[in-house]
């Protein structure tokens, strides 16, 4: 046995050590009132994420593989590692005030977020179905616990249980698909599977295996008809965690789909392309139409995240349909844009809940008068919602533009038309919140706690700046996406 090359996993090792240190430090923190001062664990967690971010950026341009080719370090993996580290950092920054307001500020929270990020990083870096599965489970198990973090609340418990049951069901389906892949190809590495299956992609056994793996990952990205868990899980989970779920695991699952399917199932590209196209149409329809009738903003954002998964899936389907990785470029740009705008939108809900821990229930009518009560919050939320709608000048527009132009490039212009029409529909439910905030009188006065915590402000500011910067200057993002794809497919 050789010593493994550990350079490709340095960011993950840093995160793992940080998580362990958090777990070791947490029980020793005690103050007089018995609740403990969590500044130390927050500092450790943020240092770990910052370390992982800096090391990942330093590893740009490398091309290595390790652990017998199970995982690689290339620009593709680095892109997602950076994205996950930033996303998790924003979530951790917005959490302390929120958890404090609910009197449940425990250090384990940060350790679990870090461990989930390790899983997500490995999902993006994996080039082997076994490692993909293990990484997915690491991410998922941390997520189940995070969903139940307010364990004395029925809704939080319900959220976790639903996530656990549907998630483990999806994992089992995916594992069954992987075992079929192994039975047919005699290998689990993406490239080896692709070589072994080669041209006989169209056979029934291969199609069944591809279908099962796609369904398992479809659950994770909450593609309709596997989306049922999403609204309940997001609504019941603590808001910063709902923010984390809506961007982290989803992005990781998209990274895995794009890295695995083109390389491992080249003989069945048309078939899985059509499968994802059908999923994308169903997902866009379900997400947008259900979001129209929601009166709870948090639940509306959950359905909107389903709709966004639908837009992203059009790009994935186009990759398969054209048998080319080019439409994936847009998907990756969209994933980066989506991370910031969605974290910002959920983060503002977390902020409002922190302001009014007892009275705020995320309902639409409580958004009335926000424009006068806290103008900054209302302006920022408007920015994020406009970006989610896809108004030019924001990150959301850039993401949609690149995804749909990739779809058109693959000669699926009708699919792009469906996507654009449904984005127009989505304007109704996003703009409705803005109208409530600025043009409706509040029905009652609320007791508001100020001021905003520094971490929350920083998290929202970074999300807002990134949303605007990606919206105005997208070329650097496009360049890094292009180099990531070159690393993956050359």
């Amino acid at each position, binding site marked *: *046995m*050789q*010593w493994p090359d550990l350079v490709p996993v340095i960011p993950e090792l840093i995160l793992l050590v940080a998580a362990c240190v958090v*777990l*070791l430090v*947490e*029980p*020793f923190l005690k103050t007089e009132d018995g609740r403990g001062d969590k500044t130390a664990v927050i500092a450790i967690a943020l240092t770990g994420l910052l370390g992982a971010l800096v090391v990942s950026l330093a590893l740009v341009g490398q091309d290595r593989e390790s652990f017998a080719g199970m995982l690689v370090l290339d620009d593709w993996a680095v892109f997602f590692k950076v994205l996950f580290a930033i996303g998790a950092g924003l979530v951790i920054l917005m959490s302390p005030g929120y958890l404090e307001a609910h009197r449940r500020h425990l250090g384990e929270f940060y350790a679990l977020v870090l461990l989930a990020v390790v899983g997500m990083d490995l999902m993006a870096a994996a080039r082997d179905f076994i490692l993909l599965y293990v990484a997915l489970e690491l991410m998922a198990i941390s997520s189940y616990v995070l969903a139940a973090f307010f364990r004395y609340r029925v809704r939080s418990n319900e959220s976790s249980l639903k996530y656990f049951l549907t998630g483990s069901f999806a994992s089992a389906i995916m594992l069954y698909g992987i075992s079929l892949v192994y039975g047919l190809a005699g290998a689990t590495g993406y490239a080896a599977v692709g070589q072994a299956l080669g041209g006989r992609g169209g056979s029934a056994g291969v199609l069944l295996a591809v279908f099962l793996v796609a369904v398992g990952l479809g659950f994770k990205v909450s593609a309709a008809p596997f989306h049922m868990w999403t609204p309940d899980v997001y609504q019941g989970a603590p808001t910063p965690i709902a923010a984390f779920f809506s961007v982290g695991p989803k992005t990781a699952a998209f990274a895995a789909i794009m890295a695995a399917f083109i390389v491992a199932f080249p003989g069945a590209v048309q078939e899985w392309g059509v499968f994802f196209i059908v999923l994308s149409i169903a997902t866009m329809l379900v997400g947008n139409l259900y979001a129209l009738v929601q009166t709870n903003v948090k639940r509306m954002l959950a359905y909107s995240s389903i709709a966004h998964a639908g837009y992203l899936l059009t790009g994935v389907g186009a990759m398969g349909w054209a048998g080319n990785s080019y439409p994936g470029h847009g998907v990756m740009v969209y994933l980066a844009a989506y991370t910031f705008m969605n974290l910002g939108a959920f983060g503002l809900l977390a902020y409002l809940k922190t302001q009014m821990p007892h009275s705020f229930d995320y309902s639409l009518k409580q958004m009335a008068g926000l424009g006068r009560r806290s103008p900054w919050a209302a302006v920022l939320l408007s920015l994020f919602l406009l970006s989610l709608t896809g108004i030019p000048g924001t990150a959301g527009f850039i993401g949609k533009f690149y995804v749909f132009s990739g779809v058109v490039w693959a000669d699926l212009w009708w699919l792009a038309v469906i996507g654009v029409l449904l984005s127009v529909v989505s304007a109704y439910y996003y703009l409705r919140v803005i109208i409530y905030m600025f043009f409706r009188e509040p029905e009652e006065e609320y007791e508001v706690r100020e001021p905003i915590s520094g971490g929350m402000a920083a998290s929202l500011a970074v999300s807002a700046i990134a949303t605007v910067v990606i919206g105005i200057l997208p070329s650097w993002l496009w360049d890094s996406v292009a180099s990531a794809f070159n690393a993956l497919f050359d």
Partner: protein
Amino acid sequence: MVNPAIDLVIQLGIMFAIGAAMAMAFISISHLLSPRSTNPNKSEPYECGVVPKSDARAPFNVHYYLVAVLFVLFDLEAVFIYPWAVSLRTLGTPALAEMFVFIAILLVGYVYAWKKGVFEWE
């Protein structure tokens, strides 16, 4: 000559049919031939010969679950160590180092559980 794959299916089918027939036969024969005795004690749950006292679904102290979960964790640790010990000579030094990492991670959990008071019984 039958196609070998179809031949295999036929053989498997015959085996399944015989297996199912035997299972059904045993159950129906014992149902038809066995002596019957009706005694109210027969319908009571069997608890090692002792007369049952109360419902089995009694609430337990949640502490038992924590200890049980930790037991499973550390039990599995031993399960992983056995095959490692058997093949350590062929795997060499990297495997030795990896086992130390594995145990160190478990130790983190152990210290955490200890400080959280999982092992304290009041």
